[in-house]
């Protein structure tokens, strides 16, 4: 079985993984949410069609999404060093995780907001609501369940990225898995990291589903 040093190391790594996941998802939303909103609002036929801005955002999001995560991480290293002073470790990884997750989140937000019934938007317009009020009260308000489901997906994806980031010294469970499991061929530790990642993923999914169920007023009874 695992000795206590190994257990505390695994627990610490779990903590780091959770920290990286939460912080980078949060930061990625700071970028991705407004971009997702702009993608919807500025789209042709949207609330405020802005063809050029929409096109630019669309292309940027597509390009960043099509770069494989590992390569994006390498590309982001100089930026990470400029911001955090280091090119490895949890905080440096957060920078690249954020950059990788933001365009993905922008798409998630976009698709959630597009689900909102056009009729309800039209109703709000007929009441004299401006674009800002419609975004806040109608788009986000009505799509909140879908947005929460989206954030569950985002958290899960970012958790997966953190594990991958271990490959280049990112810290957390992925790092442990690489260093012990792969380099030293320590199957026990490798398995333990997998189990912990699975548990984390389950927790995220469970909490997300629970929360969206609780908030959804479309379900009767």
């Amino acid at each position, binding site marked *: 079985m695992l000795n206590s040093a190994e257990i505390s190391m695994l627990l610490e790594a779990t903590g780091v993984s959770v920290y990286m996941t939460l912080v980078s998802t949060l930061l990625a939303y700071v970028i991705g949410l407004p971009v997702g909103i702009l993608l919807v609002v500025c789209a042709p036929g949207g609330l405020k069609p802005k063809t050029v801005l929409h096109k630019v955002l669309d292309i940027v999001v597509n390009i960043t999404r099509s770069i494989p995560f590992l390569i994006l991480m390498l590309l982001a290293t100089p930026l990470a060093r400029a911001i955090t002073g280091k090119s490895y470790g949890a905080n440096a990884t957060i920078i690249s995780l954020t950059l990788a997750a933001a365009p993905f989140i922008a798409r998630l937000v976009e698709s959630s907001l597009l689900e909102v*019934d056009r*009729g*309800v938007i*039209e*109703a*709000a*317009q*007929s*009441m*004299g*609501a*401006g674009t800002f*009020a419609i975004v806040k*009260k*109608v788009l986000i*308000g*009505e799509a*909140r*369940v879908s947005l929460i489901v989206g954030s569950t997906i985002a958290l899960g994806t970012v958790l997966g990225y953190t594990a991958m980031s271990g490959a280049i010294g990112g810290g957390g469970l992925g790092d442990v898995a690489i260093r012990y499991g792969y380099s030293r061929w320590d199957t026990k530790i490798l398995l333990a990291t997998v189990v912990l990642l699975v548990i984390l993923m389950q927790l995220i999914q469970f909490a997300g589903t629970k929360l969206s169920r609780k*908030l*959804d*007023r*479309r*379900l*009767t009874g």
Partner: protein
Amino acid sequence: MEPMIKIENVSKTFRGKENTVEALKGITLEIGAGDIYGIIGMSGAGKSTLVRCLNFLERPTEGTVYVEGRDLSAMSEKELRRMRTSVAMIFQHFNLLMQRTVLDNVCFPMEIAGVPKKEARERARRYLEIVELSDKEKAYPAQLSGGQKQRVAIARALAMDPKILLCDEATSALDPTTTRSILALLKEINQKYGITIVIITHSMEVVQEICTRVAIIDAGVLAESGTVEEVFASPKSKAAKRLVFQGERKVALMKSKRCVRIVFTENSSFEPVIANMVLECRASVNILLADTKDIGGIARGQMVLQLPEDEQTAEKMIAYLKERNLAVEELTDYVE
């Protein structure tokens, strides 16, 4: 008197990549204050486009709309938004916010307009009382029936004390009984609060039930307009005739036979005209269709009769009916 809404030569063309659709072509129409104005037409005729031009949710390609004498095309975006608070709208699919309670839905327009929350709630409760849904204020739209949802939408529309209420197919998703109760509610609102109501529909029944005036839109063109009685009693355009007889499949059976439609006015409907005519002419007629409606407080009915094949008797019958001041119209020319 200044009309509440003046539609002046409004055209709307949608330009797509492959095709362009001329949804409206030079519509000119005046809607008086306090009217319940029906706009009727077949699917795709351009009704929704027209009603969306009335609050400039859709900008006409040509022409303009005046609301209380103010030219909407001259307004800034901000002025348009202000104007819209006094022009409420209800829809076929209700368009309620699904994630909000009934009470919060009614509060919504006031929230947008910056009415303090407490005052908004008080006002919302008052309007929920008018639509008889006070007991549902905590419910969510998903828990309501179609009729109840439309009542919430009406309460929401009333919340800003509008001068005009636009209804786009507001009863099309409802069953006949519920339709009648919603129409009764609209009538009450019109009478109690003097709100001008514009009713978009594809059903003549709805127009007959509550409208004072009606305009018929056919393929983007104004085919005919006037008081409901005029249009109902003597439809002139083909589109109007089609609508007056809408849903009456039996009409098709009259092909090549001699048929007349008579419209009863105030007093005549209570006289047994047909029975007397049959006695006097000594020939029987087929009553193919008969219905009576209360239009604007006046009992009005229409009847379609199949006359005997014998020319002379038929003429005699027509003369008899005309003598009694009934509007008589031969149907053969347009029953296709």
